[in-house]
């Protein structure tokens, strides 16, 4: 096992990245082809390249493609924000879902729907950014109250408490304003009903977030060393932390505005990626983009197929895999696969 691992780690990084991109591409094609309604690869091809519409491929173009594109970007965004959080907090259990970002965004989404029933996609996304920042701010705020900082598990406990609180807030808003159904459309519905119009607003933000994540990846590695080491190397740690915080808020907030609250992806993917490319964030972050996308495509596909034509919420699929993984990482003291 160790030898195999070493061999994997010795393969040049660009090759691994290219393989990941290819796998991601084919997963995307397969996930687009498969579904409750039988379609062929020819239909998928036509949906891409043919003008006009026909019953064969308009279902792909109008319903399935936007959904697949959405889950792909959501997977990438959550995986990368998880990777950044693990690096900047030096905490192997960090995850936007476990540390209050996505539940904060979710509560803000409920609030926005309650106050402005006809709120635009852009408005929802901005609400999600604010909510994600507030959720993370609460968790880290509690963290900084404690002298000597947080142990990984304590941070997760604070995250769990805040997440439950924010979930309760979202539920209360839903019940009081009688919009529970609207909200659960987001939270349980995953990417169902995503439209191209929604994507055209949210995806640019995710792309910008991913771009900055790549540009800052070297800084994340330095920050993941000891604080004194980072300072000694000439890193302005305060400024980098703020920049990274903005990046994870954008990524997690944008993801929630598409599919609702979603935990564990940001935890799992970076650990899996580390087993493939090592611990340097210059490699972890680009690899997490594609691994996160592949994982979410598959999870969404399983959710559609397991009980077709009924939908199993993708958040359940992710949780079923994520929880044991979380326990595994805790048990290994955070060094899963290392």
């Amino acid at each position, binding site marked *: 096992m160790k030898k195999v691992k070493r061999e994997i780690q010795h393969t040049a990084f660009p090759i691994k990245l290219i393989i990941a991109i290819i796998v991601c591409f084919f997963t995307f094609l397969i996930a687009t082809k498969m579904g409750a309604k039988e379609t062929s690869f020819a239909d998928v091809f036509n949906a891409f390249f043919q003008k006009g519409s026909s019953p064969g491929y308009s279902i792909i173009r109008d319903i399935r493609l936007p959904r697949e594109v959405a889950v792909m970007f959501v997977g990438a965004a959550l995986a990368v924000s998880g990777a950044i959080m693990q690096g900047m907090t030096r905490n192997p259990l960090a995850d936007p879902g476990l540390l209050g970002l996505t539940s904060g965004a979710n509560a803000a989404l409920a609030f926005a729907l309650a106050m402005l029933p006809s709120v635009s996609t852009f408005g929802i996304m901005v609400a999600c950014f604010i909510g994600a920042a507030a959720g993370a701010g609460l968790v880290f705020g509690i963290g900084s109250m404690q002298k000597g900082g947080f142990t990984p598990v304590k941070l997760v406990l604070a995250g769990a408490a805040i997440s439950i609180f924010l979930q309760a807030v979202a539920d209360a808003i839903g019940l009081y304003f009688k919009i529970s159904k609207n909200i659960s459309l987001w939270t349980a519905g995953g990417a169902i009903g995503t439209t191209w119009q929604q994507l055209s607003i949210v995806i640019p933000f995710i792309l910008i977030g991913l771009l900055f994540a790549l540009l800052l990846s070297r800084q994340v590695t330095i920050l993941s*060393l*000891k604080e004194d080491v980072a*300072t000694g190397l000439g890193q302005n740690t305060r400024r980098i932390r703020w920049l990274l915080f903005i990046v994870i808020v954008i990524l997690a907030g944008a993801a929630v505005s598409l599919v609702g609250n979603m935990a564990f992806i940001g935890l799992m993917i970076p650990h899996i990626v580390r087993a493939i490319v*090592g*611990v340097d964030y210059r490699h972890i972050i680009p690899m997490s983009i594609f691994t996160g996308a592949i994982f979410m495509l598959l999870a969404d596909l399983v959710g559609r197929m397991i009980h077709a034509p009924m939908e199993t919420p993708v958040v359940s699929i992710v949780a079923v895999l994520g929880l044991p993984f979380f326990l595994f990482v805790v048990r290994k003291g955070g*060094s899963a696969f290392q």
Partner: protein
Amino acid sequence: MFRLTANDLTVGYDKVPIIQNLSVTIPDKQITSIIGSNGCGKSTLLKAITRIIPYEDGSVLLDGSQIATMKTKDVAKKMAILPQSPDSASGLTVGELVSYGRFPHQSGLGRLKQADIDVIHWAMEVTAIIGFKHRTVDELSGGQRQRVWIAMALAQETDIILLDEPTTYLDMAHQLDILQLLEQLNKQEGRTIIMVLHDINQAARFSDHLLAMRSGQIIQTGSPGEVLTKEMLRNVYEIDGEIGTDPRTGKPICITYDLIKQKEQHNNEKKIHSAI
């Protein structure tokens, strides 16, 4: 003109001052060791000089500029720091970690140029870790790991290197090995080296200049011969030491010592005995 000086420095944690009104000049191209008992503020002084912790009052000047107002990246081009037990690099390979020493010299995306690669290679060669290039840092022994961190500091290509207890947790042979490496860097490359050391005999053997600290003050400075005296040992460590000369290096050496309190007790016991 000295490149690194501190004037009237006051440093503290949570408003409790550890160091008050301390002034010091670091001689260029020499090895300076800071010695003193636990909690005397020697690590704090090193951290304040290297901007790892902020100082409340006074100034640290590097080439005539206040370090607090300099760009941290510019400081990193002039001085490298090896913190106390920095081992948190878990899975990075030796080559990756050393290459991060080039960080202050890079801009933008941080692609390594040929010149950077040459420096990294040289740093690993001098520290004799080139053979472990592809191993991960946590696979190495304590002594090897310390060499990797020193290599990273060297890759920073700074004239000044500061080290906080570089020999802690190493066995006798590896302690010597690290100190000889630092001596070689000083002699052959003229690097200014400032370190905190616990072992006064090692400090005397390898340093040109000693700073002895007690409760946040420097109480004695000078060559090992001037500083390592019976009187200093009593003042700084509250010990009664016997100073001799190292037959191999000719440097002063503390051969044996007692705690002063114990010695008094010892004498008292003798008195009681003779009284009986």
